[in-house]
């Protein structure tokens, strides 16, 4: 295997869920035989249990646009989109070097 680009782009959990859905993944393991492999079904079932399961493309895009004014790194934005913090304590845990950001 020759690696052209080890990192050709990060994907949020929602984008991976959307991709597996368009490939034909379903919660019923017998229903997606042939369309997707069993390992892909396992990833799909894991993604259905996390906040990505009820996100939409529009909401993720809008969040990314609204973040422009804040000094958030790409890693912070990815963590927030993937885990959708609901309290200040959650945001504190997700954003690196939050003290510098506040200052």
């Amino acid at each position: 295997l020759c690696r052209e680009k080890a990192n050709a782009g990060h994907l949020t959990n929602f984008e991976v869920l959307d991709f597996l859905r368009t490939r034909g993944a379903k919660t019923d393991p017998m229903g997606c035989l042939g369309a997707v492999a069993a390992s892909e079904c396992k990833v799909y079932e894991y993604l259905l249990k996390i906040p990505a399961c009820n996100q939409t493309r529009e909401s993720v895009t809008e969040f990314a646009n609204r973040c422009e004014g804040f000094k958030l790194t790409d890693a912070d934005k990815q963590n927030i989109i993937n885990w959708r913090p609901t309290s200040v304590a959650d945001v504190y845990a997700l954003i690196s070097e939050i003290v510098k950001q506040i200052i």
Partner: protein
Amino acid sequence: MFVLSQIEHNLPMPPHLLNRPLVDAIKAELERLLLDKVVANLGLCVSVYDILSVEGGFIFPGEGCSTYKVSFRLLMFRPFIGEVLVGKISGYDEKGLQVSLDFFSDICIPGHLMQFGTVRGEDGRWALKTEDGDELHLDTDDEIRFLVSSIKYPPIPVEQKEDDKPFAPMQINLDASADGF
């Protein structure tokens, strides 16, 4: 958690797949080779994302299969250092906790990277002692949030004894000591 990796590979196409459309046959062969396997320094392959280009199709002397030079993108599970993940505790030992995401289980939190005040009790379970004197046990199937601290790809062992644990080609070490975890 998930990253796209672009790879180029000289793929031999077995003759029994040649009756299928070329792109489908190449995708099937790539999935057979790479799906659910760990590629060193790239991570766990979750899916073939797309095929960018296919060239060649030459048959080399002495072989029955045609070889194509395929450029494609793989969807890899490779969390970055500093990413927050949520998983379930699947076991514990003297070194620390084992955590599992449903599709990947070789994740461990070493004892020294747990929350300050976490100690191992006499029954083997890890517990966090709070300032009030309460003990909060970390039991199996509890959900736990953690920060990725390092990812290792140990080399394949040449020999394995019977008692050794199954070889884990990708090991993720975690840090649960920061505030909020």
